[in-house]
């Protein structure tokens, strides 16, 4: 039921809006069928990013793909939280530690999802940056991958979505966008910092593709 619902949204309605706004072209999206479970590591410029990624995910397992979203932003009230969970299939995590959340809360939630066999979409920049400019990656995902080195990740470069709908803008303006997927990669590096630095470089390399 949930699978069908997400398929109707991401194979039906979303492309109907997304196509004119972004004319989005996907490169090397075959990689998504090569592994059962994966983590998408992408740069983040716009809300469009998640829509563009979700609409190219294989329909038969779209339910198992969870975009990781900031709980303090999307879970700010009951309604936004409900909408992101229902329509975006998002996994809400607290970005910073409040008194209520223990320090490891975000990790616990993501690891639980990975153990359930779910795939994640993660934007390690932490928030939306300026169009086509990449900020530094946060270390969190490095810690998780060091613990679960058998899970593959796919570096992904998303271009121009930040021009279509930048942070703080409400009306989208059409531009041609591009989503380039890299190969399947496995965690390499001694510590979390090294792992994410490698990831960062792999995403940068896709710019030229």
């Amino acid at each position, binding site marked *: 039921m949930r699978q069908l619902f997400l398929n109707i949204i991401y194979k039906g309605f979303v492309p109907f809006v997304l196509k004119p706004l972004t004319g989005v072209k996907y490169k090397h999206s075959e990689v998504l069928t090569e592994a059962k479970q994966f983590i998408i590591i992408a740069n983040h410029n716009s809300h469009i990013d998640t829509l563009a990624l979700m609409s190219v995910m294989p329909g038969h397992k779209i339910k198992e793909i969870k975009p990781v979203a900031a709980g303090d932003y999307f879970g700010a009230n009951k309604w936004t939280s409900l909408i992101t969970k229902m329509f975006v299939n998002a996994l809400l995590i607290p970005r910073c530690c409040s008194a209520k959340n223990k320090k490891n809360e975000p990790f616990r939630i993501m690891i639980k999802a990975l153990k359930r066999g779910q795939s994640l979409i993660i934007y390690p920049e932490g928030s939306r940056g300026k169009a086509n400019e990449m900020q530094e990656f946060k270390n969190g995902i490095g810690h998780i991958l060091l613990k679960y080195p058998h899970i593959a990740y796919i570096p992904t470069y998303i271009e121009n979505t930040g*021009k279509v709908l930048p942070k703080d803008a409400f009306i989208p303006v*059409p*531009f*041609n966008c591009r989503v380039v997927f890299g190969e399947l990669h496995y965690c390499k590096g001694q510590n979390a910092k090294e792992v994410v630095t490698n990831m960062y470089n792999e995403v940068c390399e896709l710019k030229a593709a």
Partner: protein
Amino acid sequence: MKKLCDHIDSTMLLFIGIVFSVLTFASLLFFILGKLKPEAKLTELKMRCKSWWIMALVFLIATVFSAKISYIAFALLSFVALRELFTILKLRQEDRSAMLLCYIAIPVQYFFTYQGYMIASLVFIPVFMFVLLPFRLVLVGQTQGIIQSMAVIPATLMIALFGLSHLGLLLSIPGGRGLLFFLVFITEMNDVFQFVWGKLLGKHKILPKVSPNKTWEGYIGGILTTTALGLALNFLTPCSTTQILFISFVTANAGFIGDVIISSVKRDLHLKDTSTAIPGHGGVLDRIDSLVVAAPVFFHLVYFFTK
């Protein structure tokens, strides 16, 4: 079905026959050449040929059946061309609102052409939008880099919307569909002729800094062949022989000019193609670059001679 067929008379059928013969000839040629000389690099030419088939079919479907569909198709073409231009041009984030105005101008302009409001469609962009767009930029208030945006955004609109909307204007005058077929066919064939003559005889470069593949031989051969083709296709237009020779000659030159203008823009931006929308051709703008300049020139010449 009968109602649909009423739209298609014998000249239309003849034209459609010519288009498919040319395409079939090209496909067969590449097929035989590929068998005779397997080492020749024909992959890109074959891909282009395949895209030509699709483009020709889409164009005929959009123009043969009903004028309404044609206007919607032209508007979509303008939209895609505008989106392509805004993507490759390095404009500021402050220009978003002016770009949005450009997108809104598309349905307005095609409404004017659809209604046959000739003066309105001729002045809407060069008079009204040219006042509105800089004013919108002024309202945003960011003056750093505003000169470039004030110049580039209206120019973009001229290319993507004003030029192309003349295809719609052509349709709004009596006998317009024949003229539209004539214009699109000779402009696109002009590109092909220039390419073929250049490949066969090309030696002396015509614009080495802008378009290193273009030669004097390709240019002259293309223009002359296109003029002859225009004469042969005169059954689609109400013009006399001398008129059509002149019109075809000037339109072929305008097509060449449009081609090299977009080429130089791409060169400045260090791009080969404007996008990857059409396999073998590049972007939509790479294919219609000659048409956006040739269309207004052709329309006003025909209008002047046959009014």
